[in-house]
């Protein structure tokens, strides 16, 4: 209530408005008379990107238009792995169904031809800047640059073409940091950018000109940061050209599912074509950090260096990738889709589905954090674990079996005729797996409660649980002889187990029935079940045995890698090479900086040997 006293002592509303008007007039006059500006606000936008922009193709126009020439890497500070990856790349790979709609990663896409649109997202109440959105016509790439100070996601979060970006204003520029990019192109003639790349970008406006600078840091494929600058001009009105539809289809009929077009080292025919056309030696057009400095002009006179076409002998690179394991003694929960979650922390990814019938848990980790795993599941469901599924018998899949089984309960069998035969029916969760998992755990003298009791023998096991169809697909002789893929059909989440990881070469456990061709079949089986949502990403979620949450793009790149390395080893075996000679030839050279290891439980040499041992050469 506003009392009479208060009314008496305050100016009337009319007077207040008058005062406000005077204040405004004074303020305006200060501005109009050109007096000193107000102090800079450190958080205020320094550049407004809002509007329509079109990229100018006065630089690198061939690359950004019709496409770059094959084997043209000059000026890119790539390392040996990237150079060899590019030389192995056959553009026919784009005819594969799972590559046809591949998008571009953010630092490459922003250089694509076409229109772009930027707009701000502001809080409806405070009008503070929440995000800047940037939409690129080519591949319909939509970026969100978060301006609200939120942190970047953890290492186990999904990677996307656009990555995860946060921005702030520095001087007269918008400065953007991006992580969580997918593997893509530094240049779309096969020169790769890895999923470990991060970028720093600057957007600066000079009137209707926008200059974008990106600095790409890629520990896997670059020996120095790559800097690119791109210009845009402002369009006064909507260009009305925004879509880039893409659907995949059959392009080459009858091709074998394990056929991934590639060139063996030293056999890319377009290297010579480029040299003949431009008269530039390999030391120039095959790139490397020296080629981006002025001194390269003198080095180009030194002639050809054919050694660049093959792996350097003796080198043994190891993975430069970020370890996605939290290793903080905690189990972390990451929502996947619907009622399905990822649990990470116990040195092996665990997937949990929850609902009225009680949780289903796929794999149980190493078991060192089993108590924390049970506690994490409790935060998702107050019901006891009903089902456990093992994708293989390996310790990182089954280590927590006993503890999780003991914490669970299977009411679906208690009170049934099973109770008449087995006193412990329904006591503890029921563990499901392929029969070979049970066999190998028994042979390894595993604790009885850790051994799957509900097993299957042939192609498929299925169950409907918590409102979703859950299917187990046996992967005959992949990592072992008992691997299963687990597909939550409604949630569309595939749990791949160790058939697919983002952390290492596939662990082909030859002693327990693993083979290279079975591994390739298993990866293709994943790809036979995935559907992307948009421009080759999203859609079906694939959870690797280790590493970050994926979709089909990561699987297809991994499949390509395994096939290509298999092809090289097979070619050498056909030529009579011994295992020692094959190892010395470094058939994994373009992937070692991403997956290689010289120590630990699964080294590059062991991987090569596993292929050599299980490959049938005709």
């Amino acid at each position, binding site marked *: 209530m506003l009392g009479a006293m208060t009314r008496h002592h305050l100016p009337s509303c009319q007077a207040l408005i008058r005062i406000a008007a005077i204040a405004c007039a004074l*303020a305006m006059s200060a501005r109009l008379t050109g007096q000193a500006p107000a102090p800079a606000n450190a958080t205020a936008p320094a550049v407004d990107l809002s509007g329509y922009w079109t990229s100018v193709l006065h630089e690198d126009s061939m690359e950004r238009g019709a496409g770059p020439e094959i084997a043209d890497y000059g000026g890119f500070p790539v390392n040996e792995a990237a150079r060899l990856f590019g030389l192995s790349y056959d553009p026919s790979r784009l005819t594969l169904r799972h590559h046809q709609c591949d998008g571009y990663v953010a630092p490459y896409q922003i250089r694509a031809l076409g229109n772009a649109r930027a707009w701000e997202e502001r809080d409806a109440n405070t009008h503070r800047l929440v995000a800047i959105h940037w939409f690129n016509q080519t591949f319909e790439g939509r970026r969100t640059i978060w301006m609200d100070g939120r942190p970047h996601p953890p290492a186990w979060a999904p990677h996307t073409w656009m990555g995860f970006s946060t921005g702030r204003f520095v001087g*007269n520029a918008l400065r953007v940091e991006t992580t969580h990019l997918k593997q893509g192109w530094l240049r779309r003639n096969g020169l790769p950018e890895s999923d470990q790349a991060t970028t720093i970008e600057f957007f600066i406006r000079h009137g209707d000109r926008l200059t974008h600078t990106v600095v790409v840091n890629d520990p896997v494929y670059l020996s120095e940061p790559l800097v690119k600058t791109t210009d845009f001009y402002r369009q006064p009105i909507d260009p009305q050209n925004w879509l880039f539809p893409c659907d995949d289809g059959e392009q080459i009929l009858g091709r074998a599912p394990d056929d991934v077009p590639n060139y063996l080292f030293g056999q890319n025919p377009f290297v010579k074509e480029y040299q003949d056309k431009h008269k530039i030696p390999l030391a120039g057009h095959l790139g490397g950090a020296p080629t981006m400095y002025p001194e390269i002009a003198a080095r180009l006179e030194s002639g050809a260096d054919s050694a660049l076409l093959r792996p350097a002998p003796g080198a043994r690179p190891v993975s430069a990738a970020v370890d996605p394991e939290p290793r903080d003694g905690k189990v972390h929960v990451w929502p996947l889709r619907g009622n399905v979650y990822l649990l990470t922390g116990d040195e092996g990814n665990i997937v949990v589905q929850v609902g009225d019938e009680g949780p289903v848990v796929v794999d149980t980790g190493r078991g060192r954090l089993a108590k924390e795993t049970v506690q994490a599941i409790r935060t998702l469901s107050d019901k006891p674990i009903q089902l456990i599924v093992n994708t293989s018998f390996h310790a990182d899949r089954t280590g927590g079996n006993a503890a999780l089984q003991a914490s669970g309960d299977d009411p679906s069998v208690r009170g049934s005729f099973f109770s008449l035969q087995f006193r412990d029916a329904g006591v503890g969760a029921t563990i499901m797996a392929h029969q070979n998992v049970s066999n190998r755990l028994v042979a390894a003298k595993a604790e009885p409660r850790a051994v799957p009791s509900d097993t299957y023998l042939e192609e498929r096991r299925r169950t409907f649980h918590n409102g979703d169809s859950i299917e187990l697909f046996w992967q005959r002789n992949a990592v072992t002889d008992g691997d299963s893929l687990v597909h939550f059909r409604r949630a569309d989440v595939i749990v791949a187990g160790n058939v697919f990881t983002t952390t290492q070469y596939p662990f082909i456990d030859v002693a327990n029935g693993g083979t290279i061709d079975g591994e390739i079949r298993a990866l293709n089986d994943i790809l036979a079940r995935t559907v992307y949502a948009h421009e080759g990403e999203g859609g079906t979620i694939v959870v690797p045995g280790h590493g970050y949450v994926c979709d089909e793009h990561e699987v297809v790149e991994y499949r390509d890698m395994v096939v290509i390395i298999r092809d090289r080893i097979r070619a050498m075996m056909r030529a009579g090479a011994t295992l020692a000679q094959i190892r010395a030839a470094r058939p994994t050279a373009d992937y070692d900086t991403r997956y290689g290891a010289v120590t630990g439980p699964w080294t590059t040499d062991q991987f090569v040997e596993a292929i050599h041992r299980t490959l049938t050469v005709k």
Partner: protein
Amino acid sequence: MPVRRFASAIVIALAVAAGGVGTGVSAQRGGPPGAPPSPRATAPIDLSGYWVSLITEDWRFRVVTPPKGDYTSVPLNPAGRKAADAWDPARDQAAGEACRAYGAGGVMRLPGRLRIEWQDERTLKIDTDAGSQTRLLTFGPSPSQGGDWQGSSIASWDRSQSVMGAGGGFFGPPASRGGSLKVVTTRMKPGYLRKNGVPYSGDAVITEYFDRLELPNGDALLVVSTEVVDPAYLTQPFWTSTHFRKQNDASGWSPTPCSAR
């Protein structure tokens, strides 16, 4: 309560307005005597030092001299193409015009290093080791009449502002932060945008923005955004952005003479 809050806002508004007026009045009454601060003293960014070009774009056109007639991505008109097709490096060399590709329209794109320093309080000097050229960027009227490879360059600090001038006041935006060096160059001798004779005329107008970017590892980048407007040879403005990385010292600095080839 709402009335009290409104009243407080009015008081603050008055204070802000009064402050603005007060500042302006004192400034109008003269402030410190003497000349206004020099361009060097008011520089929003530090461009001085040695910078090495990072040739990550148009590599084939910049690291080697492309063949005659290869003017990909340059928006030449028929006269421009005709001139480019007539390129004869031997003739240029013999005519003492080996520096045609080292003029203001082309030198920043050539592989090399820059040495940037203040020649005086209102003149920035850029030396290039490629072709041993010197560009003088003058704040205010240029003493140069042009007519040489580098022409006459007028420099200014470019800060974002509205058509009514710098920000401030009750409704105006806050003062801009940072800034760029803007350089407008005219009156050059006709030269080449690329070493293989892709031409610009003596009537071309070159506008450049120099921006300095700081990286987390301590490195700094210099980005030069260039526009060449030349109705004689171009169908549209020719835009490039060329980047350099800061060096801590003069390593690699290697002045070389112009070469027409």
